């Protein structure tokens, strides 16, 4: 068992964002968390990656929302619930945040080098080559400022930046957001290639169930912060409730 999330509960002040949410990810799997907007997907991703602690501290400091975080996150049979975000990255959990947060003033290559700063040069060089092989579009723009890339290219760059860190568990938060269907297909093919070539375990949160469900091993459906359904790819695709809620038929 690579990742175990046990009974997560997250409050933003008085609003309950995650309600007793549990999930498990085996090594080498691609697992999806499917949910509509405001279901709690991003909160889940932030809690697994530990970023929520940073949000909690910053909000507390400026007297904003108070966050209450309950529950446990286990990685490789080790409780990492209180580990700081950067410690979790060292253990191999790397989050690719939603809405492609790149460094707009730096070029593509510089972005990748910033992400790989703590890695050995040789490793970074190898991964950068791998990323450019995976996304030929990026290779063509490697000296262009990242802020001027298209949305799809920025998403590719974000995933590339996560890969440079050499994750054991790659968290992808809404990777398909704002992409055209053609671009979505390309990106999902790339995600499959990533798993095949690097053996990394992938946890995706997504609201577009139709393109995602066929390519995953298992999936969880989250609604209003609660787990409503789980199963393998086939079970979820044939489930009438999933079909009516996410396939629009």
């Amino acid at each position: 068992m690579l990742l175990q999330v046990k009974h997560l509960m997250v409050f933003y002040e008085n609003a309950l964002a995650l309600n007793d949410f549990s999930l498990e990810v085996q090594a080498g799997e691609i697992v999806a968390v499917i949910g509509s907007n405001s279901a709690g997907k991003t909160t889940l991703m932030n809690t697994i990656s530990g970023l929520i602690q940073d949000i909690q501290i910053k909000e507390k400091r400026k007297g904003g929302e108070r966050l209450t975080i309950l529950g446990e996150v286990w990685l490789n049979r080790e409780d990492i619930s209180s580990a700081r975000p950067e410690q979790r990255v060292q253990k191999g959990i790397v989050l690719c945040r939603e809405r492609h947060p790149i460094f707009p003033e730096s070029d593509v290559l510089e972005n990748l080098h910033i992400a790989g700063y703590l890695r050995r040069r040789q490793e970074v060089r190898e991964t950068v080559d791998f990323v450019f092989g995976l996304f030929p579009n990026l290779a063509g723009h490697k000296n262009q400022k990242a802020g001027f890339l298209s949305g799809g290219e920025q998403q590719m760059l974000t995933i590339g930046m996560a890969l440079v860190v050499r994750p054991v568990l790659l968290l992808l938060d809404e990777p398909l957001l704002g992409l055209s269907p053609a671009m979505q297909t390309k990106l999902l093919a790339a995600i499959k290639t990533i798993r095949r070539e690097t053996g990394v375990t992938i946890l995706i949160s997504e609201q577009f169930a139709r393109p995602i469900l066929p390519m995953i091993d298992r999936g969880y459906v989250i609604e209003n912060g609660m787990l409503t359904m789980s199963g393998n790819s086939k079970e979820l695709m044939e489930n009438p409730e999933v079909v009516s809620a996410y396939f629009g038929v």
Partner: protein
Amino acid sequence: MYIRKERIDRGVKARTEDLFALASGWDLLYLLAPRLLPILVLLLLTVTVGPYWQKVLISTAVFALLAISWDFLVAAGMVSLGQALFFGMGAYLTGILNHYFHWPIWLTIPVSTVLGGALCTFILLPVLRLRGIYFSMITLVLPLMLVRIIEATKIFGGTEGISGLASYPGRWLELYLGLAAAWAALFAFRRLLNADYGLILKGISDNDRSVMSAGINIYWYKAQALFLAGSVGAFAGAFMTHSYMFVGMPVFALDYSILPIAAAVVGGMGTMAGPLLGAFILVPLSEVLRGLGGLRIVIYALSLTVFIVALPEGLFHYIQRKYQQFERKVKVDYE
């Protein structure tokens, strides 16, 4: 079982547009007390303290005006490091009008307020297109430059300054004019920022391109904000000049730029009331410490640091939250 603290708004906040839904006299008091109490306390202070502390109150009001004007500019996305520019501009204008043209005090102050604001806006117009640090740097440098110009060209009394300016008809008028101006600026700017006009200014600070997308000329609005803030700063300068009956190079000193920022940070930015509160803490504190000689700056700096580290949101935000919300413990059903 886990116990969590829950924050709940006190009921009176429920309102539609500008209409408050008041159910009782207590509700009315709840709304009025935080607005009236400071004024009453202050009025009481003015009649109980001696002339020395009355002078301190006046200079506190001046710094409060500068701090409010700084906070307003920040709300519109312009971080000024040179409130002394506004202050000095108003001070010199009123000095010139009074000394060379023999205008009476009730004319020099309003004219230098408006003219000072307009001049500062005009000088800063080319910088309006710059964002962030560039705007700050220019505002920091301009007052320092003006001092050197006055020193080098020996205009307006040069290093000697202009003395023997008209003073106020009475010290009570002087005191209450200063305090009334500070409170007028406070309520006016708070009102303005809560109106749609203020939302545009806040929008410019948050995401100027989105404001442009709404078809709004952001530079025109920034210039207006600059004029308003500049006028308040210029008023502070003009007011202080007649209080000292003297204007000279010190009006462009760094104190007038830095202390308002410190006051805003201690009191809580973005509220106008915070900077005013900050000024009412820092200026008297600085006076109390005056007896300590060289240690004064050390203790002053230390207390400033402690304030900012312990309460980065600012004192006013903290008080406001405690006043508007109460907390209660709730159980979380959790195994």
